[in-house]
């Protein structure tokens, strides 16, 4: 089939080429593509040379091919002939039909001119007739129009004359709307002609309108009228060009004045809250202030609703009013919580305010009151939480300072113990209470609270953290150990200088810090973990707000610092005592010792005070040395021992003496070495007393080293130290260290002595006994007299 199609195509193509060459003006264009390439064998090209082609064919082809070619060519020629014939015939046919059509057109157009002229004539005559009718009717029409205008005018005049009567009728029937419509309708005329013929009429109607305005105003101001009616009245008044703005202003002012009535008075707030709380069981009593307040607010919001409808353009003003009321509420709330407020009261007032806000929000949703109040509530709540913590801190420090600890009581009575217990209780109870309050806060279901739960928890955690931190700072301030870094706080207690702060208080503070570290903080941590966890979503960026570990560390450090401070203040007192003791006499010209010096008494007295204070506040240590049964016996033995030591020394040759002495002390130290004098202080009675005694004895030694003694001076020291030995060992747990230190004092004195000859043991004993007897007698006297 393809072989058949190809020659068919060939044929069609040739046809087309032929036709195009026939029509084309320039034959070269149409055949340009093929003429050159097939110049010899293309019959169709213009440059075809038959002879040449023939020659080529004969040269190229054999007979058979030539014959074939001949046949083929003959067939092609015949085909072409028939094609041409067909073409000519078709064209001829078309010519014939065209001639026919032209002939027909020629016959149809004939006679049209006459018809046209006729038509023109008829139209001309119609026009002239219509003009005639128009002119004949013109006059009458003019007349009718004039009459009509007159009639209208007359009707208007009639209306105006009737206006007063009509208005009165309207007033009677209270159809103010109609009246206003009439009046405004007549207004332009009255304005123009009012001074001439309509004067009476105008006056009358104006009077009527005045009445109407008055009526409308009363209507607007009367609260008994329905809002709709009042709104209408307002609209009418506006139509009558009455200055509505001033009216509005007046009304709003009234509303504003009523605000004052709505203000929650801090004094009354408490009552309010109380009553609101008990509203469930005392429903019948309508005169309760809470109810009154609620009614008032309700009225206020109703009024707002009304005004909003009456004066749609006054919204802004109303918004302002509502906001003012809310702000006022929260302000008075803030004032209120400046004093101490129980959480119930706080919540009660909060509820009331929230109700008010909800009421107003209904009326003015656009005022965004809830947002505003939520913000304000956040601030207030935050303040409240902070205030609770500060109250707690105040409580604790009040408890601490309530008992004016003075010298006497602290030692004699149990004041320190009482203070410690009270403050412990204050801290514990305070935290418990505060937790209860927070529970209440969290349980509260009033709108805002639910939203703020997370925040509140965050505040609480942060609050505890800050609370403990500031508590620690306050402890340090109270103890008088204000460091230079907080001058501001230091300035507050400048009045009570450091020596006025009783040492006992410092001790109490130290123990209280331990208590907080060990008891309170774990409890708080637990409580927070169980009830107040998860709230720190907003605080996560800085880590959790409440860090018990850090607080424990802080209080641990504080307790140690305070305890050290206590010991310091105590030893300072003794130090002053010793300083005086060693500065005053001329030790080089000291007289023979007659009795134990009185500084010993004072020193022991101080120690006794320390012991008493410590006993009240600190726990006993686990280790307790066995009680010495026979203090007297031990007294003599020790004295003799030290005596022999010194006697030994005395026997040495004079020149060798000091050196050997030094050597001996070195040797003694080698053996006794590491009698730890400055050990860490523990929170036990014994440890504190021991540390105090050790520090005092060390000071004593240092003072001795700064002096030079003659024989008697040395003997005096010897006597004093000997006397101290027994009572000190009574009070102190670390006997070895005390022994060592006492010996050190003796050694120091002997080193600083020009002429070391110790007292004979019998004399020493006698003097000590005398002193003991004297002090016993003194005590007896005291007890008798008291």
């Amino acid at each position, binding site marked *: 089939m393809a072989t058949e199609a190809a020659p068919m195509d060939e044929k069609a193509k040739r046809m087309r080429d032929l036709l195009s060459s026939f029509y084309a003006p320039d034959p070269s264009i149409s055949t340009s593509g093929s003429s050159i390439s097939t110049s010899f064998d293309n019959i169709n090209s213009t440059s075809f040379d038959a002879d040449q082609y023939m020659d080529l064919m004969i040269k190229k082809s054999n007979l058979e091919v030539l014959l074939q070619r001949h046949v083929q060519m003959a067939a092609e020629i015949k085909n072409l002939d028939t094609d041409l014939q067909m073409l000519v015939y078709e064209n001829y046919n078309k010519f014939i039909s065209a001639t026919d059509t032209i002939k027909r057109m020629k016959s149809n157009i004939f006679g049209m001119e006459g018809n046209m002229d006729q038509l023109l004539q008829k139209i001309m005559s119609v026009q002239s007739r219509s003009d005639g009718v128009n002119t004949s009717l013109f006059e009458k029409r003019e007349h009718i129009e004039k009459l009509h205008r007159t009639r209208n005018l007359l009707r208007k005049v009639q209306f105006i004359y009737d206006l007063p009567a009509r208005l009165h009728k309207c007033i009677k029937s209270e159809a103010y709307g109609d009246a206003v419509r009439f009046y405004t309708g007549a207004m332009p005329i009255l304005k123009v002609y009012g001074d001439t013929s309509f004067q009476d009429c105008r006056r009358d109607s104006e009077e009527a309108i005045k009445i109407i305005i008055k009526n409308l105003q009363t209507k607007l101001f009367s609260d008994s009228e329905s809002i709709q009616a009042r709104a209408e009245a307002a609209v009418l008044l506006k139509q009558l060009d009455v200055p509505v703005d001033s009216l509005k202003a007046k009304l709003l002012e009234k509303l504003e004045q009523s605000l004052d009535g709505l203000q929650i008075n801090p004094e009354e707030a408490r009552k309010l809250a109380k009553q609101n709380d008990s509203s469930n069981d005392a429903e019948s009593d309508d005169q309760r202030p809470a109810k009154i307040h609620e009614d008032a607010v309700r009225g206020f919001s109703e009024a707002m609703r009304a005004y909003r409808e009456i004066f749609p353009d006054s919204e802004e003003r109303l918004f302002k009013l509502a906001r003012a009321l809310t702000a006022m509420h929260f302000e008075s709330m803030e004032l209120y919580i400046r004093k101490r407020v129980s959480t119930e009261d706080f919540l009660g007032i909060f509820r009331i305010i929230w109700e008010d806000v909800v009421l107003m929000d209904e009326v003015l949703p656009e005022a965004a009151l809830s947002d505003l109040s939520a913000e304000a509530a956040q601030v207030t709540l935050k303040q409240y939480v902070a205030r609770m913590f500060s109250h707690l801190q105040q409580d604790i420090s009040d408890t601490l300072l309530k008992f004016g600890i003075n010298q006497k009581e602290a030692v004699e009575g149990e004041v320190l113990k009482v203070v410690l217990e009270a403050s412990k209780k204050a801290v514990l109870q305070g935290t418990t209470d505060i937790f209860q309050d927070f529970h209440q806060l969290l349980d509260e279901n009033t709108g805002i609270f639910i939203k703020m739960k997370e925040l509140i928890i965050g505040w609480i955690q942060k609050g505890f953290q800050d609370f403990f931190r500031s508590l620690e700072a306050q402890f340090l301030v109270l103890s008088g150990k204000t460091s230079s870094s907080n*001058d501001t706080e230091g300035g507050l207690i400048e009045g009570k200088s450091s020596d006025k702060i009783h040492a006992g208080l410092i001790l109490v503070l130290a123990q209280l810090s331990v208590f907080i570290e060990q008891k309170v903080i774990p409890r708080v941590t637990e409580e927070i973990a169980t009830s107040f966890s998860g709230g720190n979503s907003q605080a996560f960026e800085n880590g959790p707000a409440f860090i018990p570990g850090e607080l424990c560390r802080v209080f641990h450090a504080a307790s140690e610092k305070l305890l050290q401070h206590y010991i310091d203040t105590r030893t300072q007192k003794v130090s002053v005592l010793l300083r005086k003791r060693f500065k005053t006499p001329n030790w080089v010209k000291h007289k023979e010792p007659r009795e134990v010096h009185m500084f010993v008494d004072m020193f022991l007295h101080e120690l006794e005070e320390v012991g008493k204070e410590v006993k009240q506040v600190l726990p006993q240590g686990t280790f307790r040395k066995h009680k010495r049964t026979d203090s007297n016996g031990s007294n003599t033995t020790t004295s003799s021992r030290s005596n022999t030591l010194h006697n030994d020394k005395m026997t040495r040759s004079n020149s060798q003496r000091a050196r050997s002495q030094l050597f001996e002390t070195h040797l003694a130290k080698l053996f006794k070495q590491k009698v730890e004098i400055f050990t860490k202080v523990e929170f036990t009675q014994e440890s504190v007393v021991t540390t105090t005694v050790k520090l005092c004895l060390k000071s004593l030694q240092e003072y001795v080293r700064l002096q030079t003694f003659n024989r008697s001076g040395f003997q005096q020291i010897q006597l004093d130290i000997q006397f101290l030995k027994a009572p000190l060992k009574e009070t102190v747990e670390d006997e070895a260290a005390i022994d060592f230190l006492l010996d050190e004092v003796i050694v120091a004195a002997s*080193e600083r002595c020009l002429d070391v000859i110790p007292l004979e043991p019998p004399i020493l004993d006698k003097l000590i006994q005398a002193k003991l007897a004297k002090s016993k007698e003194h005590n007896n006297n005291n007890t008798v007299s008291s």
Partner: protein
Amino acid sequence: MQGGSSGVGYGLKYQARCISEVKADRDHTTFLTGTLSLKEENEVHLLRLSSGGSELVCEGLFSHPNEIWDLACCPFDQRIFSTVFSTGDSFGAAIWQIPEPYGQSNSSTLECVASLDAHVGKINCVLWSPSEKSDKLISMDEQNLVLWSLDCSRKSAEVLSKESAGMRHSLSGGAWNPHDVNSVAATSESSIQFWDLRTMKMVNSIERSHVRNVDYNLKREHILVSADDESGIHLWDLRKAKVPVQELPGHTHWTWAVRCNPEYEELILSVGTDSAVNLWFASASSEKKTSESPVEASRQRVNPLLNSYTDYEDSVYGLAWSSREPWIFASLSYDGRVVIESVKPFLPKR
């Protein structure tokens, strides 16, 4: 005597309280120390640290007639020093010259240049003017402040002026301001007093009782360090001396002496009767520190103690930095043991 853990040790024969650096010796790190013995013949030891820093060599041993309570070296002549001594019932102060050649050991006698004998009471200390060319001296007893002019060549000292601080005050020691040669700080029972030497008047004071020792910061003007029995070490800015700039806890017992490092302004050494030497780092940049939050401040308070040298058997009274090698200091405990330590591991990075 065997040295401590790291320090170089040297033992004196008797107890001793004071040690001083021989500043005028520019070629060696040298210290001078004197013993305190009531009954024996007292000695002055000239100690030199060997170049390797591993040994403390006694370069000279001189007998001193009385027990020495205070010793200070002349800043311009390495052979001259002053002592305050006690005979038991009376006190004296004198300027001494080490005999030449002082390398010769054993018991050469000291040559007395001048005796500062304008005092009656207990003399506390002798201060040399910090200015190297000045020949001024101050001696202090409990009531009086005496300014001397020393003439070494003529071997005499002359009283330039004398002023009583009053009976009440009971002076106990002092320091000469290295930044202002006319200003001297004196410690008294109830305050630190500042004296102007031109007028010999007290011009200022810091109320602080029982201050035992003061030292000026050599590198930073206006900064004074004080040590007292009761509450440790305080740094003061003299321009606003109401409140201390910084507090350091000091020692377990009394803090006896403080010395600022001559080169590293933040380093402070203190010695105490708890047989320890403490090395402190006190930045004392006053303004910033106070305004920091208490948390920050407390954190800073935690770590000012760089190191505590506790290898002593008795109270430590003597302390001196080396100005030639400012990372070296000498300490002297009451039992007569001199210990040289290096603070190199604790030096601040510069």
